[in-house]
């Protein structure tokens, strides 16, 4: 086993770990954090693919490496938006939970804007 294959397996494990956290954690912030771990696992797969494609005097294929840089910035943007949504939800309701809002939407006076 070489380094790239080893990190490939680790990346796959991180995807599973992140997915587990995303499903199991009830707190939205933990879900967001798990999403970041899941995302980093996916980015690492790109990294492994890039490393496997080393050649032409480069340590890795620059295309997937560039895609990861774009991906990291996008993932940060997503985290920022999700965190802002969550904090606003907390300010409005004093809770930070996704549960029980379905019944809320049905019960609350069906006002429109």
């Amino acid at each position: 086993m070489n380094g790239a294959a080893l990190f490939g397996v680790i990346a796959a494990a991180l995807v599973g770990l992140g997915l587990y956290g995303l499903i199991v954690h009830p707190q939205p912030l933990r879900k967001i954090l798990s999403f970041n771990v899941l995302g980093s696992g996916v980015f690492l797969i790109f990294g492994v693919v890039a490393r496997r494609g080393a050649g032409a005097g480069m340590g890795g294929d620059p295309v997937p490496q560039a895609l990861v840089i774009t991906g990291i910035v996008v993932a940060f943007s997503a985290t920022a938006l999700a965190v802002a949504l969550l904090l606003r939800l907390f300010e409005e309701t004093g809770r930070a939970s996704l549960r029980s809002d379905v019944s809320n939407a049905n019960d609350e006076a069906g006002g429109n804007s």
Partner: protein
Amino acid sequence: MSSFEGTTASGFLLVLAIVAPFIGVLLSLALGGRASERIALLLMPMGLGIAVAIASGVWRAGAALLYVLGGWKPPLGVVLRADGLSAVMLVTTAIVICAAGLFARAEFQVPRGAPERRAPLMFWTLLLAVWGALNLVFLSSDLFNFYVALELLTFAAVPLVCLSGRAETLAAALRYMLFALLGSVFYLLGVALLYGAYGVLDVGLLSSRIRPDPVAWVALSLMTTGLLAKTALFPLHLWLPPAHAGAPPAASAVLSALVVKGAFFLIVRLWFDVMPGLLPQQAAQLLGALGAAAVLFGSVVALRQARLKLLIAYSTVAQIGYLFFVFPLVIGTDVAHAWNGAAWTGGWMQLVSHAFAKAAMFLAAGLIAEAAGHDRIAELGGIGRALPISVLAFALGGLSLMGVPPSGGFVAKWLLLTAAVEAGQWWWALVMLAGGLLAGAYVFRVLGQLWGDASGPLASLTKVSIRREAIALALALGAVSLGFVSLEPAKLLQIGRTHAAEIVLR
């Protein structure tokens, strides 16, 4: 610099279709205030013109339009490609966005000299962003560029859901966001594996290299799963109803009519362009079965809704289900007729007619709710007499959903039904008939109430403008009139598919 013979004449229109809305976003953010509405209103006819020009370019050329970005051809560079499907989607999108924009003027107007307000700035800017993102989905032909398009779409759509700032819309937006993020990260995972196996991202190049090996199966399953979450196919639909029901009416119309279809469009690209003809019948049956479950489940739950907007949102869950009958039926037909067969045409007819019908219904429901101050169906009795045009728009949209002739929905469902019988897959036909009946039940339940006796004093209604009612009605008439046009323009759907068809035949 490499040569440019890849770019076709009028290919620059593809760049404009994507870039123009985003230029609008930048200007709108920079200038703010009143400018944002003006920029959007200025770009709406321009965007519609560009979409129509691309469609007629594709029609006249009889082939896909191409544009090589930056002069770098794939595999290193990215090309834009407009085939018949793109053309149909671009025009549909432009019409619905323009209607939603005109409709929203009353709600998001900024008076002269007034200070900038939050909701109008956000609505106009994000409306343009949704438009640009959708156009990118329809015009790109690069797997990673699709990912960027999906993210643009998510980031533009989520804030629209909670524009009102009410607590329940915030929760709905957050849940939508989490589903959407999970969807795109799974999609991206598949992209990584495909690049690792084939070293290209361009759809055309990939389709010529891809083989039915385990890596391709794993990658495409992951990508499809992610996209199913974004298109809200049962059982991944949980986020959709509260999100679509809580948004402002014009935004609901755009979200339900267009945004969920962006992800569906990519699933079609994956299975019919990236890996044409290689979708195994079992997988196609599975997609069809999920679609069937969505049709039945969505309709039944819609029937039980107490609020009008939630009912319409659940009907979206059901109507998306029909789109997935395309997979087993196209795969099931004689390969030579895949692209001019009833299933292919019927599927796209369903998509377009649902877009018009659903946008009309959300706009009409918005007006009803605005007039009554709420959207509780039980308390809307007799409102049909106060708002006849809006209720008519709702009714016509509903007829199209049910598949009653003459309407686009009828033609769509008829074609799908025929295809199902021809392919010997009668079980889809049964589901479609049941879905039609259930749609009839939920539409007539509402209409019976709206046209029925007044449950309370109607005098307290807020007045709504006839012009806005007319917009809803025009969209509904659009959905109906699709039932009258000949199927000649449907040939557009075959343009640019010859390459794919050859591979099917192989």
